[in-house]
Protein backbone atom coordinates (compact mmCIF):
# COMPACT_ATOMS: atom_id res chain seq x y z
CA UNK A 1 0.00 0.00 0.00
CA UNK A 2 1.15 3.47 -0.81
CA UNK A 3 1.94 5.96 1.92
CA UNK A 4 -0.54 8.90 1.64
CA UNK A 5 -0.40 11.34 4.59
CA UNK A 6 -3.84 12.74 5.40
CA UNK A 7 -2.65 16.29 6.11
CA UNK A 8 -1.49 16.87 2.51
CA UNK A 9 -3.26 17.75 -0.73
CA UNK A 10 -2.55 15.92 -3.99
CA UNK A 11 -2.58 16.71 -7.70
CA UNK A 12 -3.55 14.29 -10.47
CA UNK A 13 0.03 14.60 -11.69
CA UNK A 14 1.16 13.07 -8.34
CA UNK A 15 2.56 16.12 -6.58
CA UNK A 16 1.75 16.70 -2.91
CA UNK A 17 1.25 20.15 -1.39
CA UNK A 18 1.64 21.18 2.25
CA UNK A 19 0.40 24.60 3.40
CA UNK A 20 2.85 26.11 5.89
CA UNK A 21 2.05 28.51 8.74
CA UNK A 22 3.22 31.50 6.66
CA UNK A 23 0.83 30.59 3.85
CA UNK A 24 3.54 29.26 1.55
CA UNK A 25 3.08 25.82 -0.01
CA UNK A 26 5.78 23.13 0.00
CA UNK A 27 5.67 20.74 -2.97
CA UNK A 28 7.11 17.30 -3.66
CA UNK A 29 6.08 14.11 -5.44
CA UNK A 30 4.04 11.38 -3.81
CA UNK A 31 5.40 8.12 -2.49
CA UNK A 32 3.51 6.32 -5.24
CA UNK A 33 5.16 8.54 -7.87
CA UNK A 34 8.68 7.97 -6.58
CA UNK A 35 8.01 4.24 -6.40
CA UNK A 36 6.80 4.17 -9.99
CA UNK A 37 9.76 6.18 -11.26
CA UNK A 38 12.40 4.22 -9.36
CA UNK A 39 15.85 5.36 -8.24
CA UNK A 40 16.25 9.12 -8.65
CA UNK A 41 19.49 10.26 -10.21
CA UNK A 42 18.90 13.94 -11.00
CA UNK A 43 16.45 16.61 -9.89
CA UNK A 44 16.14 19.86 -11.81
CA UNK A 45 14.62 22.49 -9.51
CA UNK A 46 13.08 25.82 -10.58
CA UNK A 47 14.76 29.15 -9.98
CA UNK A 48 13.95 31.04 -6.83
CA UNK A 49 11.95 34.14 -7.76
CA UNK A 50 10.37 32.54 -10.82
CA UNK A 51 6.63 32.99 -11.24
CA UNK A 52 4.64 29.90 -12.16
CA UNK A 53 1.01 29.21 -12.87
CA UNK A 54 -0.98 26.24 -11.60
CA UNK A 55 -0.30 23.05 -13.58
CA UNK A 56 2.83 24.54 -15.15
CA UNK A 57 5.82 22.21 -15.44
CA UNK A 58 8.49 23.79 -13.28
CA UNK A 59 10.81 20.99 -12.12
CA UNK A 60 12.01 17.65 -13.47
CA UNK A 61 12.72 14.45 -11.59
CA UNK A 62 14.89 11.97 -13.43
CA UNK A 63 15.16 8.38 -12.36
CA UNK A 64 17.34 5.74 -13.97
CA UNK A 65 14.21 4.84 -15.90
CA UNK A 66 12.77 8.13 -17.12
CA UNK A 67 12.46 11.89 -16.81
CA UNK A 68 9.21 13.22 -15.43
CA UNK A 69 7.91 16.78 -15.12
CA UNK A 70 6.81 18.14 -11.78
CA UNK A 71 3.88 20.55 -12.08
CA UNK A 72 3.09 23.47 -9.81
CA UNK A 73 -0.07 22.57 -7.87
CA UNK A 74 -0.80 26.28 -7.38
CA UNK A 75 0.34 29.44 -9.13
CA UNK A 76 2.65 31.92 -7.43
CA UNK A 77 6.28 32.72 -6.80
CA UNK A 78 8.96 30.13 -6.12
CA UNK A 79 10.41 31.25 -2.78
CA UNK A 80 12.71 28.33 -1.96
CA UNK A 81 14.08 25.21 -3.63
CA UNK A 82 15.64 22.12 -2.08
CA UNK A 83 19.31 22.62 -2.97
CA UNK A 84 20.30 19.40 -1.20
CA UNK A 85 18.71 17.34 -3.95
CA UNK A 86 21.53 18.32 -6.32
CA UNK A 87 23.88 16.03 -4.42
CA UNK A 88 21.41 13.52 -3.05
CA UNK A 89 18.49 13.02 -5.44
CA UNK A 90 17.80 9.67 -3.76
CA UNK A 91 16.28 11.62 -0.86
CA UNK A 92 13.11 11.82 -2.98
CA UNK A 93 12.93 8.01 -2.87
CA UNK A 94 13.81 7.74 0.79
CA UNK A 95 11.63 10.51 2.23
CA UNK A 96 9.20 11.73 -0.42
CA UNK A 97 7.05 13.74 2.02
CA UNK A 98 9.86 15.13 4.19
CA UNK A 99 13.48 15.79 3.22
CA UNK A 100 12.59 14.97 -0.37
CA UNK A 101 10.52 18.15 -0.86
CA UNK A 102 11.36 19.92 -4.11
CA UNK A 103 10.24 23.57 -3.97
CA UNK A 104 8.17 26.06 -1.99
CA UNK A 105 5.65 28.44 -3.57
CA UNK A 106 4.06 31.61 -2.22
CA UNK A 107 0.62 31.21 -3.81
CA UNK A 108 -0.89 34.14 -5.68
CA UNK A 109 -4.35 32.69 -4.99
CA UNK A 110 -4.52 30.16 -2.14
CA UNK A 111 -8.03 29.30 -3.39
CA UNK A 112 -6.40 27.20 -6.12
CA UNK A 113 -5.53 24.65 -3.43
CA UNK A 114 -9.20 23.77 -3.34
CA UNK A 115 -8.88 22.11 -6.73
CA UNK A 116 -6.49 19.50 -5.30
CA UNK A 117 -7.48 16.09 -3.91
CA UNK A 118 -7.43 15.11 -0.27
CA UNK A 119 -5.72 11.88 0.78
CA UNK A 120 -8.83 9.77 0.41
CA UNK A 121 -9.58 11.07 -3.07
CA UNK A 122 -5.96 10.55 -4.11
CA UNK A 123 -6.02 6.98 -2.86
CA UNK A 124 -9.12 6.36 -4.96
CA UNK A 125 -7.43 8.07 -7.91
CA UNK A 126 -4.40 5.78 -7.59
CA UNK A 127 -6.62 2.71 -7.42
CA UNK A 128 -8.44 3.80 -10.58
CA UNK A 129 -5.08 4.26 -12.34
CA UNK A 130 -4.16 0.66 -11.64
CA UNK A 131 -6.80 -0.54 -14.06
Amino acid at each position, binding site marked *: MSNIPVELKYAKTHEWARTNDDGSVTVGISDSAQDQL*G*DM*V*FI*EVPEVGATVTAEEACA*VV*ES*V*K*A*ASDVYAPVGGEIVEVNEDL*ADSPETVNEDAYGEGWIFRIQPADAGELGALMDAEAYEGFLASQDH
Partner: protein
Amino acid sequence: MANRTPLYDEHVADGGKLVDFAGWDMPINYGSQIEEHNQVRTDAGMFDVSHMTVVDLTGDRTREFLRYLLANNVDRLKDSGKALYSCMLNESGGVIDDLIVYFLQDDFFRMVVNAGTHDKDIAWLEKQSAAFDVTVTERPELAMIAVQGPNARDKALPLLSDAARAAASELKPFFGAFDGDWFIARTGYTGEDGFEIVLPAAEAATFWQQLRAAGVKPTGLGARDTLRLEAGMNLYGSDMDESISPLEAALGWTVAWEPAERDFIGRAALEQQRKQGTTQKLVGLLLEGKGVLRNHQKVVVEGAGEGEITSGSFSPTLQRAIAFARVPKATADTCQVDIRGKLLTARVVKPPFVRNGEAQIEL
Protein backbone atom coordinates in the same frame (compact mmCIF):
# COMPACT_ATOMS: atom_id res chain seq x y z
CA MET B 1 -2.12 -12.26 -22.04
CA ALA B 2 1.62 -11.76 -21.92
CA ASN B 3 3.99 -14.72 -21.93
CA ARG B 4 5.44 -15.79 -18.61
CA THR B 5 8.78 -17.45 -18.09
CA PRO B 6 9.15 -20.52 -15.81
CA LEU B 7 10.45 -18.07 -13.17
CA TYR B 8 7.37 -15.84 -13.12
CA ASP B 9 6.29 -16.98 -9.65
CA GLU B 10 9.81 -16.36 -8.33
CA HIS B 11 9.71 -12.77 -9.62
CA VAL B 12 6.39 -12.17 -7.88
CA ALA B 13 7.74 -13.73 -4.66
CA ASP B 14 10.90 -11.59 -4.92
CA GLY B 15 8.81 -8.41 -5.21
CA GLY B 16 9.69 -7.84 -8.85
CA LYS B 17 8.04 -4.92 -10.61
CA LEU B 18 6.72 -6.64 -13.72
CA VAL B 19 6.47 -4.86 -17.05
CA ASP B 20 5.75 -5.92 -20.60
CA PHE B 21 8.94 -6.64 -22.51
CA ALA B 22 8.53 -7.90 -26.08
CA GLY B 23 5.30 -9.61 -25.08
CA TRP B 24 6.70 -11.09 -21.86
CA ASP B 25 5.91 -10.19 -18.25
CA MET B 26 9.42 -9.44 -17.01
CA PRO B 27 10.84 -7.83 -13.86
CA ILE B 28 12.20 -4.32 -14.50
CA ASN B 29 13.56 -4.28 -10.95
CA TYR B 30 12.94 -5.81 -7.53
CA GLY B 31 13.04 -2.51 -5.64
CA SER B 32 16.15 -0.58 -6.57
CA GLN B 33 17.70 -0.76 -10.01
CA ILE B 34 20.86 0.97 -8.79
CA GLU B 35 21.37 -1.47 -5.92
CA GLU B 36 20.91 -4.37 -8.34
CA HIS B 37 23.37 -2.81 -10.77
CA ASN B 38 25.97 -2.34 -8.03
CA GLN B 39 25.38 -5.87 -6.76
CA VAL B 40 26.43 -7.23 -10.15
CA ARG B 41 29.48 -4.94 -10.33
CA THR B 42 30.69 -5.83 -6.85
CA ASP B 43 29.34 -9.31 -6.02
CA ALA B 44 26.83 -11.42 -7.96
CA GLY B 45 23.39 -10.98 -9.45
CA MET B 46 21.07 -13.20 -11.48
CA PHE B 47 18.81 -12.42 -14.42
CA ASP B 48 15.94 -14.39 -15.84
CA VAL B 49 16.62 -14.35 -19.57
CA SER B 50 14.27 -17.22 -20.38
CA HIS B 51 12.37 -14.91 -22.73
CA MET B 52 15.32 -15.08 -25.13
CA THR B 53 15.09 -17.62 -27.91
CA VAL B 54 17.30 -20.70 -27.89
CA VAL B 55 17.52 -22.30 -31.34
CA ASP B 56 19.35 -25.50 -32.17
CA LEU B 57 20.63 -25.94 -35.70
CA THR B 58 21.38 -29.46 -36.83
CA GLY B 59 22.40 -31.17 -40.03
CA ASP B 60 25.58 -32.08 -41.87
CA ARG B 61 25.76 -28.70 -43.58
CA THR B 62 25.15 -26.56 -40.48
CA ARG B 63 28.59 -24.95 -40.52
CA GLU B 64 28.30 -24.19 -44.21
CA PHE B 65 24.86 -22.66 -43.60
CA LEU B 66 26.13 -20.40 -40.79
CA ARG B 67 29.10 -19.36 -42.91
CA TYR B 68 26.53 -17.95 -45.34
CA LEU B 69 24.00 -16.69 -42.78
CA LEU B 70 26.22 -14.63 -40.49
CA ALA B 71 28.45 -11.60 -41.00
CA ASN B 72 30.98 -13.01 -38.57
CA ASN B 73 32.69 -16.23 -39.63
CA VAL B 74 31.87 -19.46 -37.78
CA ASP B 75 35.13 -20.88 -39.10
CA ARG B 76 36.68 -18.93 -36.23
CA LEU B 77 35.06 -21.58 -34.03
CA LYS B 78 37.46 -24.50 -33.96
CA ASP B 79 37.06 -25.88 -30.44
CA SER B 80 33.80 -27.45 -29.32
CA GLY B 81 31.84 -25.15 -27.03
CA LYS B 82 33.33 -21.93 -28.39
CA ALA B 83 30.93 -19.00 -28.82
CA LEU B 84 30.82 -16.26 -31.44
CA TYR B 85 28.97 -12.94 -31.42
CA SER B 86 27.58 -11.99 -34.81
CA CYS B 87 25.04 -9.92 -36.66
CA MET B 88 22.54 -11.61 -38.96
CA LEU B 89 22.06 -9.27 -41.94
CA ASN B 90 19.52 -8.79 -44.67
CA GLU B 91 20.58 -8.42 -48.31
CA SER B 92 21.03 -4.66 -47.92
CA GLY B 93 23.38 -5.08 -44.98
CA GLY B 94 20.87 -4.05 -42.32
CA VAL B 95 20.86 -5.93 -39.02
CA ILE B 96 18.00 -8.43 -38.61
CA ASP B 97 19.34 -9.38 -35.18
CA ASP B 98 22.51 -9.79 -33.19
CA LEU B 99 23.15 -13.15 -31.58
CA ILE B 100 25.49 -15.60 -29.96
CA VAL B 101 26.21 -18.89 -31.69
CA TYR B 102 27.92 -21.83 -29.98
CA PHE B 103 29.79 -24.48 -31.93
CA LEU B 104 29.08 -27.88 -30.39
CA GLN B 105 29.67 -30.37 -33.22
CA ASP B 106 29.99 -29.85 -36.95
CA ASP B 107 26.37 -30.90 -37.34
CA PHE B 108 25.11 -29.10 -34.22
CA PHE B 109 25.28 -25.39 -33.34
CA ARG B 110 23.20 -23.57 -30.74
CA MET B 111 22.08 -19.99 -31.22
CA VAL B 112 20.60 -17.52 -28.74
CA VAL B 113 18.65 -14.66 -30.33
CA ASN B 114 16.63 -11.76 -28.95
CA ALA B 115 13.07 -12.06 -27.66
CA GLY B 116 11.82 -8.98 -29.47
CA THR B 117 12.90 -10.34 -32.85
CA HIS B 118 11.70 -13.92 -32.32
CA ASP B 119 9.16 -14.15 -35.13
CA LYS B 120 11.22 -12.58 -37.89
CA ASP B 121 14.37 -14.44 -36.80
CA ILE B 122 12.68 -17.82 -36.96
CA ALA B 123 11.09 -16.98 -40.31
CA TRP B 124 14.48 -15.90 -41.68
CA LEU B 125 16.26 -18.99 -40.34
CA GLU B 126 13.60 -21.28 -41.81
CA LYS B 127 13.79 -19.55 -45.15
CA GLN B 128 17.57 -19.47 -45.44
CA SER B 129 18.25 -22.94 -44.01
CA ALA B 130 16.07 -24.81 -46.50
CA ALA B 131 18.76 -24.89 -49.18
CA PHE B 132 21.22 -26.42 -46.70
CA ASP B 133 18.97 -29.13 -45.27
CA VAL B 134 19.55 -27.66 -41.83
CA THR B 135 16.90 -28.28 -39.19
CA VAL B 136 15.89 -25.28 -37.06
CA THR B 137 14.57 -26.34 -33.65
CA GLU B 138 13.34 -23.86 -31.06
CA ARG B 139 13.76 -24.92 -27.44
CA PRO B 140 10.90 -23.24 -25.53
CA GLU B 141 11.07 -26.01 -22.91
CA LEU B 142 14.37 -24.54 -21.74
CA ALA B 143 14.85 -21.66 -19.31
CA MET B 144 17.91 -19.42 -19.14
CA ILE B 145 19.47 -17.76 -16.10
CA ALA B 146 22.44 -15.40 -16.31
CA VAL B 147 24.59 -15.27 -13.16
CA GLN B 148 26.96 -12.32 -13.37
CA GLY B 149 29.48 -10.52 -11.21
CA PRO B 150 32.97 -10.98 -9.75
CA ASN B 151 31.66 -13.63 -7.33
CA ALA B 152 29.16 -15.20 -9.75
CA ARG B 153 31.24 -18.24 -10.59
CA ASP B 154 32.22 -18.97 -7.00
CA LYS B 155 28.60 -18.77 -5.88
CA ALA B 156 27.10 -20.73 -8.77
CA LEU B 157 29.60 -23.57 -9.14
CA PRO B 158 28.82 -25.38 -5.84
CA LEU B 159 25.14 -25.58 -6.87
CA LEU B 160 25.82 -27.55 -10.04
CA SER B 161 25.90 -31.31 -10.37
CA ASP B 162 29.37 -32.85 -10.05
CA ALA B 163 29.69 -33.33 -13.79
CA ALA B 164 28.38 -29.85 -14.63
CA ARG B 165 30.65 -28.28 -12.03
CA ALA B 166 33.67 -30.09 -13.43
CA ALA B 167 32.89 -28.84 -16.92
CA ALA B 168 31.88 -25.31 -15.89
CA SER B 169 34.89 -24.67 -13.68
CA GLU B 170 37.20 -25.43 -16.63
CA LEU B 171 35.42 -23.12 -19.06
CA LYS B 172 37.47 -20.36 -20.61
CA PRO B 173 35.67 -17.06 -21.36
CA PHE B 174 33.24 -17.35 -24.28
CA PHE B 175 32.99 -21.13 -24.07
CA GLY B 176 30.04 -23.33 -23.12
CA ALA B 177 29.59 -26.98 -22.17
CA PHE B 178 26.76 -29.48 -21.77
CA ASP B 179 25.85 -31.65 -18.85
CA GLY B 180 22.79 -33.57 -19.96
CA ASP B 181 20.01 -31.04 -20.60
CA TRP B 182 21.99 -28.27 -18.91
CA PHE B 183 24.18 -25.99 -20.97
CA ILE B 184 26.55 -23.70 -19.08
CA ALA B 185 28.39 -20.91 -20.87
CA ARG B 186 30.90 -18.39 -19.61
CA THR B 187 29.22 -15.52 -21.41
CA GLY B 188 27.09 -12.54 -20.44
CA TYR B 189 25.84 -9.05 -21.13
CA THR B 190 27.22 -7.08 -18.21
CA GLY B 191 30.97 -6.71 -18.64
CA GLU B 192 31.52 -9.00 -15.64
CA ASP B 193 32.56 -12.61 -15.37
CA GLY B 194 29.86 -15.23 -14.90
CA PHE B 195 27.70 -17.83 -16.55
CA GLU B 196 24.66 -18.02 -18.73
CA ILE B 197 22.92 -21.26 -17.85
CA VAL B 198 20.36 -22.92 -20.09
CA LEU B 199 18.38 -25.56 -18.20
CA PRO B 200 15.07 -27.43 -18.32
CA ALA B 201 12.17 -25.11 -17.46
CA ALA B 202 10.97 -27.53 -14.78
CA GLU B 203 14.26 -27.17 -12.88
CA ALA B 204 14.58 -23.39 -13.20
CA ALA B 205 12.67 -22.29 -10.08
CA THR B 206 14.61 -24.64 -7.80
CA PHE B 207 17.94 -23.47 -9.21
CA TRP B 208 16.86 -19.82 -8.85
CA GLN B 209 16.02 -20.45 -5.21
CA GLN B 210 19.37 -22.14 -4.62
CA LEU B 211 21.19 -19.21 -6.21
CA ARG B 212 19.23 -16.79 -4.04
CA ALA B 213 20.11 -18.79 -0.94
CA ALA B 214 23.77 -18.63 -2.00
CA GLY B 215 23.62 -14.83 -1.98
CA VAL B 216 23.06 -14.19 -5.67
CA LYS B 217 20.51 -11.35 -5.86
CA PRO B 218 17.66 -11.18 -8.38
CA THR B 219 18.42 -8.42 -10.88
CA GLY B 220 15.90 -6.89 -13.26
CA LEU B 221 15.97 -5.78 -16.87
CA GLY B 222 16.56 -2.18 -15.79
CA ALA B 223 19.96 -3.01 -14.33
CA ARG B 224 20.64 -5.33 -17.24
CA ASP B 225 20.33 -2.30 -19.52
CA THR B 226 22.62 0.00 -17.51
CA LEU B 227 25.15 -2.81 -17.07
CA ARG B 228 25.35 -3.56 -20.78
CA LEU B 229 25.51 0.14 -21.63
CA GLU B 230 28.43 0.64 -19.23
CA ALA B 231 30.03 -2.46 -20.75
CA GLY B 232 29.79 -0.92 -24.23
CA MET B 233 27.43 -3.56 -25.60
CA ASN B 234 24.81 -2.72 -28.19
CA LEU B 235 21.10 -3.32 -27.74
CA TYR B 236 19.15 -4.51 -30.76
CA GLY B 237 16.29 -2.19 -31.68
CA SER B 238 17.95 0.79 -29.98
CA ASP B 239 21.49 0.91 -31.32
CA MET B 240 20.89 -0.94 -34.56
CA ASP B 241 18.06 -2.36 -36.63
CA GLU B 242 17.33 -3.36 -40.21
CA SER B 243 18.03 0.15 -41.50
CA ILE B 244 21.51 0.25 -39.92
CA SER B 245 24.57 -1.74 -40.96
CA PRO B 246 27.14 -3.09 -38.49
CA LEU B 247 29.56 -0.47 -39.86
CA GLU B 248 27.24 2.28 -38.61
CA ALA B 249 26.73 0.58 -35.24
CA ALA B 250 30.35 0.25 -34.05
CA LEU B 251 30.15 -3.44 -34.94
CA GLY B 252 32.65 -3.44 -37.79
CA TRP B 253 34.82 -5.72 -35.65
CA THR B 254 32.16 -8.45 -35.92
CA VAL B 255 32.26 -8.50 -39.72
CA ALA B 256 34.71 -11.10 -41.03
CA TRP B 257 35.88 -9.75 -44.42
CA GLU B 258 38.45 -12.51 -44.84
CA PRO B 259 38.46 -14.89 -46.59
CA ALA B 260 37.26 -12.67 -49.43
CA GLU B 261 35.63 -15.60 -51.21
CA ARG B 262 33.23 -16.30 -48.32
CA ASP B 263 29.82 -15.15 -49.48
CA PHE B 264 27.46 -14.12 -46.70
CA ILE B 265 24.07 -12.44 -46.77
CA GLY B 266 24.59 -8.68 -46.94
CA ARG B 267 28.23 -8.88 -47.99
CA ALA B 268 27.84 -7.07 -51.31
CA ALA B 269 25.96 -4.20 -49.68
CA LEU B 270 28.50 -3.94 -46.86
CA GLU B 271 31.43 -3.90 -49.27
CA GLN B 272 29.78 -1.14 -51.23
CA GLN B 273 29.29 0.82 -48.01
CA ARG B 274 32.86 0.22 -46.97
CA LYS B 275 34.15 1.45 -50.33
CA GLN B 276 31.96 4.55 -50.38
CA GLY B 277 32.46 5.24 -46.70
CA THR B 278 29.73 5.58 -44.10
CA THR B 279 28.32 8.99 -43.24
CA GLN B 280 27.60 8.26 -39.62
CA LYS B 281 29.11 6.33 -36.74
CA LEU B 282 28.13 5.11 -33.29
CA VAL B 283 30.17 6.61 -30.44
CA GLY B 284 30.11 6.74 -26.66
CA LEU B 285 29.15 9.95 -24.88
CA LEU B 286 29.85 11.17 -21.36
CA LEU B 287 27.79 14.14 -20.22
CA GLU B 288 30.14 16.73 -18.70
CA GLY B 289 27.63 18.26 -16.31
CA LYS B 290 24.52 17.19 -14.44
CA GLY B 291 21.55 15.69 -16.21
CA VAL B 292 20.62 12.39 -17.82
CA LEU B 293 21.12 11.33 -21.42
CA ARG B 294 18.10 9.53 -22.88
CA ASN B 295 17.27 7.62 -26.04
CA HIS B 296 16.31 9.87 -28.98
CA GLN B 297 17.74 13.12 -27.62
CA LYS B 298 19.17 15.23 -30.42
CA VAL B 299 22.94 15.57 -30.70
CA VAL B 300 24.40 18.70 -32.29
CA VAL B 301 27.95 18.62 -33.64
CA GLU B 302 29.29 22.03 -34.62
CA GLY B 303 30.35 22.06 -38.23
CA ALA B 304 29.39 18.43 -38.80
CA GLY B 305 25.61 18.22 -38.43
CA GLU B 306 23.24 16.41 -36.12
CA GLY B 307 22.86 12.98 -34.61
CA GLU B 308 20.78 11.13 -32.05
CA ILE B 309 21.25 9.24 -28.83
CA THR B 310 20.43 5.58 -29.37
CA SER B 311 20.92 4.39 -25.76
CA GLY B 312 21.24 6.82 -22.89
CA SER B 313 21.09 6.47 -19.14
CA PHE B 314 22.68 7.30 -15.86
CA SER B 315 25.75 5.21 -15.11
CA PRO B 316 25.57 4.02 -11.50
CA THR B 317 29.26 3.10 -11.56
CA LEU B 318 30.53 6.41 -12.97
CA GLN B 319 27.76 8.49 -11.34
CA ARG B 320 27.42 10.35 -14.64
CA ALA B 321 25.14 10.23 -17.63
CA ILE B 322 26.48 8.07 -20.47
CA ALA B 323 25.17 7.11 -23.89
CA PHE B 324 25.72 5.68 -27.29
CA ALA B 325 24.91 8.14 -30.07
CA ARG B 326 24.81 7.91 -33.84
CA VAL B 327 26.58 11.02 -35.07
CA PRO B 328 28.09 12.42 -38.28
CA LYS B 329 31.33 10.71 -39.28
CA ALA B 330 33.29 13.96 -38.80
CA THR B 331 32.38 14.20 -35.10
CA ALA B 332 35.54 14.75 -33.06
CA ASP B 333 36.00 15.12 -29.29
CA THR B 334 32.83 16.86 -28.15
CA CYS B 335 29.24 17.46 -29.08
CA GLN B 336 26.14 19.02 -27.57
CA VAL B 337 23.01 17.21 -26.51
CA ASP B 338 19.60 18.84 -26.54
CA ILE B 339 18.08 18.08 -23.15
CA ARG B 340 14.66 19.71 -22.88
CA GLY B 341 15.71 22.60 -25.08
CA LYS B 342 19.08 23.24 -23.44
CA LEU B 343 22.30 22.31 -25.23
CA LEU B 344 24.65 20.55 -22.81
CA THR B 345 28.21 19.52 -23.61
CA ALA B 346 29.13 15.85 -23.84
CA ARG B 347 32.52 14.32 -24.44
CA VAL B 348 32.95 11.70 -27.16
CA VAL B 349 34.56 8.61 -25.63
CA LYS B 350 35.40 5.09 -26.69
CA PRO B 351 33.29 2.40 -24.94
CA PRO B 352 33.39 0.35 -22.80
CA PHE B 353 32.76 2.75 -19.95
CA VAL B 354 33.23 0.02 -17.32
CA ARG B 355 34.76 -3.46 -17.38
CA ASN B 356 35.16 -5.90 -14.52
CA GLY B 357 34.00 -3.29 -12.04
CA GLU B 358 36.57 -0.69 -13.14
CA ALA B 359 35.95 2.61 -14.93
CA GLN B 360 37.60 2.54 -18.36
CA ILE B 361 37.39 6.25 -19.11
CA GLU B 362 38.64 9.29 -17.24
CA LEU B 363 35.92 11.45 -15.76
